[in-house]
């Protein structure tokens, strides 16, 4: 019980619940099915990004190139399928997207795992290489006529409900996000690889002495993130029913902010899937629903920035206190 009280996840959940009830009490449209379906829909692609980013942060690194990877795989996949005029099942699109993502993630891991260059700088560089390459050499205008298989999938929904405004529902691709979240949770909690990622992020030297290959784990992490980004890109194009090469770019810092708010530490070794997803939901609600309180949308950034600082500040103070208790000689 005491341990639960100390986690970021716990506080974020409380803040989230309070916010939900407060917004709901001020404006009843917040609790409408419409609004919640909107929220879920807006969380499908960021949800996948969050899982990938969480893994990177736990391993002690940081990756800002995933939106570029996602945009790259998204656009390239759609243009491959449309230009070849393939009448292929939709799974094919996901496979291509995932493979492109895997490849780009692998390029990141060459610099990070083998050459041991700083992760932030490397991914900043590769991000502008990927997006620059995409927009210069591949981009050929928006693709608005998607392959049929993809359009069909975009029309498939779960939980369809008919209201006055027409039928609304949750796209079936939501299940992919759920599956990836479950996979990530299982991976981190019950597999050797997952535990090694935590160990590596906690202390690289000790992890190596325990017999964990830091190179292998890092290659795995960045390839995994790339693959997830590739899949997320394909999902994005399916949901918006067009493929625009400059979509998705520039959203990386908000995703990292969500993961950090959810209790992951940028220094590595800490973080849970639950915390990250809850924090993402909090940020999505602030983005989508602050306006229901009558607060103009230009307050969003201020609120999100303040939340990040308060959230991480509280946990930093806690860490400091627990260190002081444990080791009074080291501090002063």
């Amino acid at each position, binding site marked *: 019980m005491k341990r639960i009280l100390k986690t970021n996840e716990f506080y974020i959940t409380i803040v989230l619940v309070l916010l939900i009830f407060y917004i709901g009490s001020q404006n009843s449209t917040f609790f409408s099915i419409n609004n919640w379906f909107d929220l879920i829909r807006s969380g499908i692609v960021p949800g996948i990004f969050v899982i990938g980013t969480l893994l990177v942060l736990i391993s002690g690194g*940081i990756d800002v190139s995933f939106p570029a990877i996602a945009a790259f795989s998204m656009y390239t996949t759609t243009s491959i399928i449309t230009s070849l005029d393939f009448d292929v099942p939709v799974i094919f699109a996901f496979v291509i997207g995932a493979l492109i993502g895997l490849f780009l993630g692998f390029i990141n891991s060459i*610099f990070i795992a083998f*050459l041991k*260059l*700083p992760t*932030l*700088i*490397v991914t*900043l*560089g*590769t*991000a*502008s*290489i*990927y*997006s*620059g*390459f*995409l*927009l*210069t050499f591949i*981009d050929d205008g928006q693709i608005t006529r998607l392959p049929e298989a993809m359009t069909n999938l975009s029309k498939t929904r779960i939980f369809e409900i008919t209201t006055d405004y027409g039928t609304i529902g949750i796209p079936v691709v939501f299940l992919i996000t759920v599956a990836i979240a479950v996979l990530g949770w299982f991976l981190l909690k019950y597999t050797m690889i997952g535990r090694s990622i935590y160990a590596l992020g906690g202390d690289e030297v000790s992890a190596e002495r325990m017999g964990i290959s830091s190179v292998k784990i890092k290659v795995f992490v960045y390839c995994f993130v790339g693959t997830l980004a590739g899949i997320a890109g394909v999902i994005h194009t399916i949901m918006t029913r067009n493929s625009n090469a400059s979509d998705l770019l520039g959203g990386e*810092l908000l995703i*990292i*902010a969500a993961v*950090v708010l959810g209790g992951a*530490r*940028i*220094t590595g070794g800490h973080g849970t899937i639950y915390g990250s997803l809850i924090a993402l939901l909090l940020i999505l609600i602030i983005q989508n629903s602050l306006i229901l309180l009558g607060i*103009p*949308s*230009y*307050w*969003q*950034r*201020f*609120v*999100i*920035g*303040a939340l*990040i*600082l308060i959230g*991480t*500040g509280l946990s*930093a*103070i806690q*860490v*400091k206190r627990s260190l002081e208790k444990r080791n009074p000689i080291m501090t002063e």
Partner: protein
Amino acid sequence: MSNPLHVNEDKKQGRFNLNKDFIDKYGDLTLLFFIMISVFAIMAIINPNVFLSQGMMLSIANQFPILGLLTLAMMFAMVSGGIDLSVVSTANLSAIMASIIMVQYIPADASAGVTTLYILLSIVCALLVGCVAGLFNGILVSVVGIPAIIVTLGTMQLYMGIALVLTKGKSIVGLPTIVSEVGAGTLFGIPFPLIIFIMFVIFSYFVLNLRDYGLKLQMTGSNPTASKFSGINVTSITIKAYVISGLLAAVAGLLMTAATNAAKADFGTTYLLQAILVAVMGGVNPYGGRGKVAGVVMAVITMQILSSGLGMLQVSNFFKDFMWGTVLIIVLLANLFYNKKISKLS
């Protein structure tokens, strides 16, 4: 190097010793210098008529000071062992403060003297805003103990948020004409932004190399624990680094306003990644502890030559992004192999 026998050997071979010392100290700067000259030469050979024209030189000299100041701001944060993702937000917030004062408080029938006074006041306010923004960053990093990247990620949102709230998301226009006149003006034939840049380059060099503070900052950045136990006040050193970073960002913000004759909450957001890139390219160690003003200056000039030169060839902005990224990775790799060679030498 720690082996006393080596010292003897070095003394015997005086010339070799000098060379090695030179490479140790200035090797990376020499490398950068040659890169800068070659980029310049390549661009001049491709299209001498356009590239070597006075207009092109003026446009280069007008453009790089903003990025240069932001990079110097980034450098101070990086040398302290952190990073400052909030430089562009700080710049915009300061510029907006100054613009609000200039637009709202100058009476319509003010004389030239009164207007100048108000402009000076607004500049002071902008610099103060930059310092306070930096102070806040510094306190959160060193007193509260949040990692710098998270602090500045948060304050980046926060400062941009404040700027958005102040302006309601619109851009501020209608500044006194004198602002853009100064922004586009020259003094003894040197563009005004360049003069400001040179002033702050000297300031940065002075702080980092000629003051006691600079040495302490570099020690703090390379090993905070060791510095703490050797009696350095790490907290105050770090806070000061972020204040300087905020101040430099504010100056960049003022130059941005002077160049565009407007201020907006989300101006120049692409500068952020470019500033990190140029800092790393200029030899600033992303893990902290090391950074050279001369390196940053050469790196920013190189990137501006490359960027303007590519612009001359009518390539798209996206291709520029591609080139920037490629250059960054190449510089990282070059540094890596160069450092390996150096460590083999000694």
